[in-house]
């Protein structure tokens, strides 16, 4: 039996992203050396939206990158089927940059661990910060996001999905029993 | 000691016989065939009930390689002749490409001694046409015949020199000993791994064209026709070869021919997995060739079926396809594979026996091929219903290189009698003794 519950709608998502954009600017004291990198698949559109909001506020473009962390996953060879590889696109050096990593949901923290490893191969950033739309708890690694849209304590039997207009045609966050 | 075979269906093409009869063996020869032969009291007679079985003149495989002397790790006269009786063969001819080559009396006599000691099937050595099968100098045909060779052949190393072949054919004819020709133009076939055609193109293996075979068949027929002598063509495999032989026979050329079971049961598509157990010379051909071979068997163009039993060990076969030796074993599958022809209505049972017994005996001028009273009691008993699955590990042959591994066959030899003695049986024997 699956039960679907919408926990965030389009307006909620947008308000959270706006707040996160301001928090990023506040925390980093402006846009200087700032880059935004979205983690495939869920973080890409959110990173784009956040970057756009920052650009609108600061009237300057902020560099935007895309990161696929599959090759850095700690379970990449233990599954029988290989996940489809997405393209990584970080067309700039990360040396001395302030990197804001963006993902949709933080859960065990393993994805972020892989992402940080991957970022190190692109240079030596001054710092890495993490922005997520949803923090659903159950961390397995000592990782804490800097910017959170919504903390949503969930049970392990639930699935939290972020649907975005760019892909699913609708902005919403839903919880399902599985 | 007498042996009475009761109630079998006797098929003897030499006497046009196909009837359920009893057959009595006395002193190693066929003494009598009659509707009923009573068991006489007072005399020791072993009786075997063969109801439901086919009883035929002992099968003759006129083309085998026994590898002794020289390659005893592949086969010996002992194991080869044991494999023969297990396959229903009471007589086999073995080719000369041993080491040393059977090109002189001492090798011929050695093989015969080994056969005597083995005491299984009768073994008839075929000696080489040229010394060392080098294609340069003739061997001593008369001396070899005197020593016991029944035919001459450079099988495996074909005689390319047409002049030498002409001399061999004429000389052999004058001495009354047949020549068996392995027809292969070695310039055309050089480097070839398999039949040349779509499959070789797909696999990237160098092909052996059909022409490499039938150009030489045409040559040998031309030579035989010119000199008015006979020639026997070994292992015919192509449609064009069948056509050339058919037309020669029509003209009255004294040509006979044999094919092997794999040329009417398998095609070159079997090679797709690069299995070396399908590698032999001539190579497996295309479906059109298989059909033409069957047609040639049916209309009498092809006189005989011989296995071309060619044992090789894993040393020669468990290697890259290109490096693997040519040849497959056949003694223990030849009859079962050939019975497919009967099932497919290509041949009658009697015609099949003719090609596996009566005709080979005639071509090689050796005893056998008949159950006429007074002839050797060489008899093969066939159970047409017997189902079996080929497992090379259980073969009597030393080698395992069969293309039929795992194949389900119906029909096989169940009792092989040589000179009145049972040499192989999977019947419950000896029945009852009086």
């Amino acid at each position: 039996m699956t039960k679907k519950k919408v926990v965030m709608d389009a307006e909620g998502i947008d308000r959270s992203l706006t707040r996160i954009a301001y928090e990023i600017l506040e925390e980093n004291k402006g846009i200087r050396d700032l880059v935004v990198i979205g983690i495939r698949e869920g973080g890409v559109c959110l990173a784009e939206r956040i970057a756009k909001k920052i650009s609108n506020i600061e009237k300057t473009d902020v560099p935007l990158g895309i990161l696929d962390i599959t090759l850095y996953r700690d379970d990449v060879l233990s599954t029988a089927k290989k996940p489809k590889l997405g393209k990584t696109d970080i067309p700039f050096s990360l040396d001395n940059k302030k990197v804001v990593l963006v993902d949709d949901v933080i859960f065990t923290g393993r994805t972020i661990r892989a992402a940080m490893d991957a970022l190190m191969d692109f240079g030596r950033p001054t710092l890495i910060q993490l922005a997520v739309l949803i923090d659903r708890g159950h961390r397995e690694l000592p990782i804490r996001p800097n910017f959170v849209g919504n903390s949503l304590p969930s049970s392990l039997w639930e699935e939290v999905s972020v649907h975005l207009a760019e892909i699913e045609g609708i902005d919403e966050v839903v919880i399902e029993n599985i | 000691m007498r042996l009475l075979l009761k109630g079998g269906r006797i098929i003897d093409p030499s006497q046009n016989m196909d009837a359920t009869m009893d057959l009595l063996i006395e002193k190693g020869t066929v003494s009598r065939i009659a509707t009923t032969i009573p068991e006489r009291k007072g005399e020791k007679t072993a009786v075997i009930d063969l109801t439901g079985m086919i009883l035929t003149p002992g099968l003759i495989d006129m083309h085998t390689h026994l590898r002794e002397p020289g390659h005893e790790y592949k086969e010996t006269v002992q194991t080869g002749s044991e494999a023969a009786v297990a396959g229903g063969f009471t007589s086999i001819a073995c080719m000369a490409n041993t080491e040393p080559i059977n090109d002189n009396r001492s090798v011929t006599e050695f093989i015969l001694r080994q056969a005597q000691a083995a005491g299984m099937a009768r073994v008839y050595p075929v000696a080489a046409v040229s010394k060392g099968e080098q294609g340069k100098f003739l061997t001593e045909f008369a001396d070899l015949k005197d020593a016991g060779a029944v035919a001459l052949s450079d099988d495996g190393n074909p005689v390319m020199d047409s002049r030498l072949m002409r001399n061999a054919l004429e000389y052999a004819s004058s001495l009354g000993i047949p020549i068996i020709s392995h027809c292969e133009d070695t310039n055309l076939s050089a480097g070839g791994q398999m039949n040349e055609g779509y499959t070789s193109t797909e696999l990237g293996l160098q092909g052996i064209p059909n022409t490499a075979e039938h150009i030489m068949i045409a040559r040998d027929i031309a030579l035989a026709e010119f000199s008015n002598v006979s020639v026997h063509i070994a292992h015919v495999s192509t449609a064009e070869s069948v056509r050339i032989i058919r037309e020669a026979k029509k003209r009255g050329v004294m040509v006979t021919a044999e094919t092997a079971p794999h040329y009417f049961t398998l095609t070159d598509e079997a090679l797709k997995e690069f299995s070396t157990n399908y590698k032999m010379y001539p190579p497996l051909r295309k479906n059109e060739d298989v059909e033409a071979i069957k047609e040639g068997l049916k209309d009498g163009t092809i006189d005989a079926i011989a296995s071309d039993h060619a044992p090789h060990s894993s040393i020669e076969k468990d290697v890259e396809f290109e490096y693997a030796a040519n040849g497959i074993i056949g003694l223990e599958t030849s009859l079962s594979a050939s019975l497919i022809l009967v099932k497919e209505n290509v041949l009658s049972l009697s015609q099949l026996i003719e090609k596996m017994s009566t005709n080979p005996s005639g071509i090689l001028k050796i005893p056998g091929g008949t159950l006429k009273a007074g002839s050797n009691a060489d008899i093969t008993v066939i159970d047409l219903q017997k189902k079996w699955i080929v497992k090379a590990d259980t073969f009597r042959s030393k080698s395992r290189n069969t293309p039929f591994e795992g194949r389900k066959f119906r029909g096989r030899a169940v009792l092989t009698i040589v000179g009145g003695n049972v040499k192989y049986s999977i019947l419950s024997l000896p029945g009852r003794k009086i």
Partner: protein
Amino acid sequence: MKFERKDILGLKDYSRDEINFILDTAESLKEISTRKIKKVPTLRGKTVISLFYEPSTRTRTSFEIAAKRLSADAVNITASASSVVKGETLIDTARNLESMNPDIIIMRHSAAGAPHILARLLKHQSIINAGDGAHEHPTQSLLDMMTIREKRGKIDGLRVALIGDIAHSRVARSNIYGLTIMGAEVALCGPAMMMPREIDKMGVTVHNRMEEAIRDADIIMMLRIQLERQKNNMFPSVREYAKLYCLTPDRVKMAKKNVLVMHPGPINRGVEIDPQIADGPYSVILEQVTNGVALRMALLYLLAGGK
């Protein structure tokens, strides 16, 4: 789409989806080679052995770099194979390698079907065929298709001319399989002695004159001619071969305006390809080499682990 093969032996029985999946994966991996740190940790602890029975610089180096960029341990073995000089048998070599627990074995051999022996024998190792006799060279064809797809956005419907020694070419066979599966139209041309029997049944057209084969071609693939074949009367002279089958500027003009010229390398300048063309704007020969690394990374990635 799932990639569930144990080995990569040949393209003959591949599906269009499978080939696209491999090419997609390779495209994603291509970026790694442009980074400052050209390495990802994916195949850490995996051992990749290349077992080459034929000399090769390009393919072996390409595989080795691919393995190393994925953090696998790469070991090269150069073996000598000959039916005359009998060394260790292939099966013994395979069992010895197996005992050292490698994960992937990349094999090149002059005998067609040799990698298939390894693939059958070794249950826990993946075998990649890096060229077996005149049979298949799947990784070359895949990198060729990757280059075509990258440059043209598709393969379906393109006209590809394949010129040279078709009979002895494993590159030709793999490309005929691969390209026809992907929907390309393949036109062949080469000396009659080098055109294998019944090749038209593989879904290609065969042309006597090179001009016919390359007319309106989107892609021209030149095959390497082995000059030793002259000894077996496979062609009368290099001069005559070049006269009939060399890709010259005049001949290139007969193809489409944006034609791509490809060659699996190493090239014989002035024999099968005019230097002006090899170094000219149509040539994607060096892009093929670059893509070779990404493509081979993709195959190592897809085969490693999770069996």
